[in-house]
C-alpha cells in the first residue's frame, strides 16, 4: 500500500513535467493511469509491473526508461533482502576490509560463468547466482577486479555482459544497498548510451541527477549553446577524453594517440566554436553536462 502511494506521487509529478500519457499495471490491474490510452505505445516490465507509455517518439522512450529506473529502485528497496541476494547464506563471515559488490548481467550461460569466476576468486570472496545474474563480493579497496571480470567474460567466456559495481563497503548489513547501487549503475547506461562493459556507481552520480531533468529543460540548456550540435565526433571524443583524464593534456594526448599540440589545437577549436575552455574546470563541467544531456535528448 505504501508502495502504491509512493509510486502514484512520483508518477503524478512525472506526468506534470512531461505531459505524456502513461499507465502502470500490476498483474493486469491498473495501478496508475494518466491521460488517454492511444494506439502507439512503448511498454516494459519491471518485475511484476508493466509500464505502458502512449507516445511513440523519443520523449516517450525517455519516459519509459525513467519509469523503469524508478520502479527498479522501488522494487529493490521493497523486495530484495539479504537472504535473496546471497542465496540464503546468512552465515557469511565478513572481515573488516573494504569490499566491492559486482553484479554481472546479460550472461548467456550463468552456470558456466559461475564456474569460471569461482576459479578466479580468492578465499575471502563470495559469489552467488541471483535471477540470471552473478553477484560477486570481492575484498578490495579499488575497482581492480573489474579488469579480471572483463577479461573472464569477454576473453575466456566470450560473453557480452554488463557489469555494475557498488561503492566500497565493509559491513554485512550494507550488502543490499551495495546491490542496489550496482543495479542502479547498470540501469542508467541505457539512458545515456554508455557503450562500455563496466559501470561503476560512484562514477555515475551526475547521471542519476541528470536522468530526472525534464526533456524540455535539457533541450533548453542545449539551446544555450547552438554550436554544440555542430561539433564533430572527433570533438566529442576530445572533450570526453580530456575530462576522463582530469583535464591533463599530456595524458589525454597519450590516450588518444595524438601529439600534445594536435590536442591543444582541437581544444582551441572547440573554444572558438563554443566559447568554452575545456581546460578550465567550470567550462569542462558545462561541456560534460552538455554531452550527457545531448545523449539523453537523442534517445
Amino acid at each position, binding site marked *: 500500500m505504501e508502495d502504491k502511494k509512493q509510486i502514484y506521487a512520483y508518477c503524478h509529478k512525472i506526468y506534470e513535467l512531461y505531459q505524456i500519457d502513461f499507465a502502470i499495471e500490476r498483474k493486469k490491474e491498473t495501478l496508475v493511469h494518466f491521460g488517454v490510452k492511444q494506439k502507439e505505445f512503448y511498454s516494459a516490465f519491471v518485475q511484476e509491473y508493466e509500464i505502458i507509455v502512449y507516445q511513440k517518439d523519443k520523449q516517450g522512450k525517455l519516459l519509459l526508461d525513467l519509469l523503469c529506473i524508478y520502479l527498479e529502485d522501488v522494487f529493490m528497496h521493497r523486495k530484495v533482502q539479504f537472504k535473496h541476494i546471497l542465496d540464503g547464506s546468512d552465515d557469511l563471515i565478513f572481515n573488516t576490509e573494504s569490499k566491492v559488490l559486482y553484479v554481472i548481467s546479460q550472461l548467456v550461460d550463468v552456470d558456466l560463468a559461475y564456474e569460471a569466476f569461482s576459479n578466479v576468486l580468492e578465499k575471502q570472496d563470495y559469489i552467488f547466482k541471483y535471477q540470471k545474474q552473478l553477484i560477486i563480493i570481492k575484498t578490495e579497496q579499488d575497482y581492480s577486479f573489474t579488469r579480471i571480470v572483463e577479461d573472464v567474460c569477454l576473453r575466456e567466456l566470450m*560473453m557480452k555482459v554488463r557489469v555494475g559495481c557498488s561503492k566500497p563497503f565493509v559491513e554485512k548489513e550494507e550488502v543490499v544497498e551495495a546491490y542496489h547501487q550496482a543495479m542502479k549503475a547498470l540501469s542508467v547506461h541505457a539512458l545515456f548510451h554508455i557503450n562500455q562493459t563496466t559501470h561503476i556507481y560512484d562514477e555515475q552520480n551526475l547521471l542519476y541527477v541528470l536522468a530526472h531533468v525534464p526533456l524540455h529543460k535539457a533541450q533548453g540548456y542545449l539551446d544555450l549553446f547552438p554550436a554544440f550540435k555542430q561539433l564533430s565526433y572527433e570533438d566529442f571524443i576530445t572533450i570526453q577524453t580530456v575530462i576522463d583524464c582530469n583535464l591533463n593534456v599530456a595524458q589525454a594526448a597519450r590516450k588518444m594517440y595524438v601529439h600534445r599540440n594536435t590536442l591543444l589545437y582541437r581544444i582551441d577549436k572547440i573554444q572558438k566554436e563554443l566559447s568554452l575552455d575545456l581546460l578550465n574546470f567550470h567550462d569542462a563541467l558545462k561541456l560534460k553536462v552538455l554531452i550527457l544531456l545531448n545523449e539523453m535528448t537523442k534517445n
Partner: protein
Amino acid sequence: MATLSLKNINKKYPNGFHAVKDFNLEIADNEFIIFVGPSGCGKSTTLRMVAGLEDITSGDFEIDGVRMNDVEPKDRDIAMVFQNYALYPHMSVFDNMAFGLKLRKVPKEQIKKQVEEAAAILDLGPLLNRKPKQLSGGQRQRVAMGRAIVRHPKVFLMDEPLSNLDAKLRVQMRTEISKLHQRLKSTIIYVTHDQTEAMTLGTRIVVMSDGVMQQVDTPQNLYDHPKNLFVASFIGSPQMNLMVAGIEEENGEIVAKFDGNTITLPARHAEACKQQGYVGKRVMFGIRPEDLHDPKFSLKQFHDKISCKVTVYEMVGAEVYLYFEVSNQTMTARVDSKTEARVGDTVDLYVDTNKIHLFDMETEQKIVD
C-alpha cells in the same frame, strides 16, 4: 585456418552515431590483417563485431562461408587478446594458460599438451610454475597471448595488444608476434593506431577514418600509392609533405607551381591533369620526405628542385631530417646524414618527380596513380 567475409557491414548505435559504414572485406586463410586509423575511426568496433561482442546493425559476416551474425561469440571459435589483459594473480602461468581449456572441459592430458606446446612457441617453458607478479611486462604479455593460443582458434583478434608496453618492449613483442604468425599459420586481425606496427606486421592493411574504410592494400602499396589524402598523410613517418599547388601549362609542359617553385609534371601526371581538366586549377601536391634529395649526395640527377630555408636540423643517426617552410606549411626532407645544410641555410633540394602525388582539393582523391 579460416576465411572471413564482411559484406556491407554497418554499425549504428541507438543514439544515431554511425560508427562503421558499409565495410566490405574478404580475408583469406592465414592472412595477417591490420585495422589502422585514428581513435574513434571504427576499427575496434569492427573487430568487436567480428568477435560478436557488438551487434551488427546491417550486413553479413561469414567465417568459412557460414553466416555468423547471430552466432554467440563463444561459438565463433575466435580468441581475443586485448590491450588491458588481466592475468589471474593467484594462479601459476600454467593455470592461467589452462584456465579456458578447463572451462571447456578439455581432458587434463590434452590441456597439459596444449599448454606446453603454446609455452614452447612463446618461450614460456621455464616460467610455467611462476605467478604473474614474478614475471616481467613482456613475459606477462606473452602469457596473455598464450591463453589465446592454447585454444587453437580459427581466428585471432588482437586489439592494441602492445599499447601498454614501453617502446623497447613493443619493438621486441612486434617481432615475436610476427614470428608467431609464421609459426601458427593462422588468420589474425590486429587493431592498432600505430602505423609502424601496421606496416611491419600486416600482410594487408585496412586504413579507416570516420567509420569508412579508406583503402585496403599491402603495406608497400599503401605507402607508394595512397588513394586519397587521408591515407597519404596517415601512412608514413615523417608524414608526406602536402601543399596547395596551381597546375599550369608553360612552354608546352604541365607544371605545378607553389611558393615560387615550379615543378614539371612527368608525362602520366601531365596527361591526367590535362584530360581531367585540372590545368588552371589548384590541387594538393604531395611528396614524401625521402623523395627530396640533397644534390651533393644524390646518386641521381633530377631536373626539378625547390629552394628553401632550413628552419630545423634533426640528426637521427643514419639520416638527417631538414625542416623548412613552403607556402606557410612545414615540410620535411629526409637526406643523407653527411649533408652540410644547417639551420638558416638556403638550400636547393632535388624533387624526384616520378614520386609525386596529386590529389583533388575537393574530393581528396588521387588524381593519377
